[in-house]
């Protein structure tokens, strides 16, 4: 594998990992909000 291809692969991995990471944070915050609302509703 040439240097350019190695670069491309690593960069793609970085982007993919970043996206998955951001999505996990986002969805975790959403789930937290839902749980809080449900807890409030139960009083």
């Amino acid at each position: 594998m040439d240097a350019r291809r190695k670069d491309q692969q690593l960069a793609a991995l970085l982007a993919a990992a970043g996206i998955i990471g951001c999505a996990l944070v986002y969805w975790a915050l959403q789930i937290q909000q839902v749980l809080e609302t449900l807890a409030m509703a139960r009083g």
Partner: protein
Amino acid sequence: MLPTFLNSWRRSIATLAVSGVALGFGFSAWRVNAWEALQPLFAWMETSWLGAIGKTWGGVFAVVEAMHLLAMAMLGGALLVSDGRLLGWLLRDVPVTLLLCRAHRVFVIGLVAALATGMFMACAVATKIYFLPVFWIKMLALAVGVLFTFAIKRPLLADGIEDLHPWVVRAVAVASLTVWFTVAASGRWIGFSG
């Protein structure tokens, strides 16, 4: 083909920047300034003839929305098949490059249709969505999805995946499914808000 100065690193960083913006931006005053600058555009959208049609005839809006969902189905179906193949779940006896290339065409048609129908609907409800945080989340997720798909995923996979590390391929497929799922889910949420 993208120009060479936009090499893989710069593209990845750009995609991550947009992705990070969706989170970080949400907690700073900077977002308010950018948002306020867009207000005239959204006010105009609602008064444009596209907006007028959508607002006057609820039936037309509903049919366009149904088309938006069908476009989503097409786009999503193409992604399920491509990313499913990359993850080794679906169509394992079809050559990867062939499947990805062909499915990508269906994806693009679905995406174009979704964008067109989406813009029509946005005009009709411009003021409402302007004030909805989940709309902006969807737009940012959409930007990340488009950047990732066209500038990173496709160039990486177009020449075949045999030389790539299997975990890189899996990560790319999962990221793709994740970001587009977020676009679809936040889109549905817009319908529940306001």
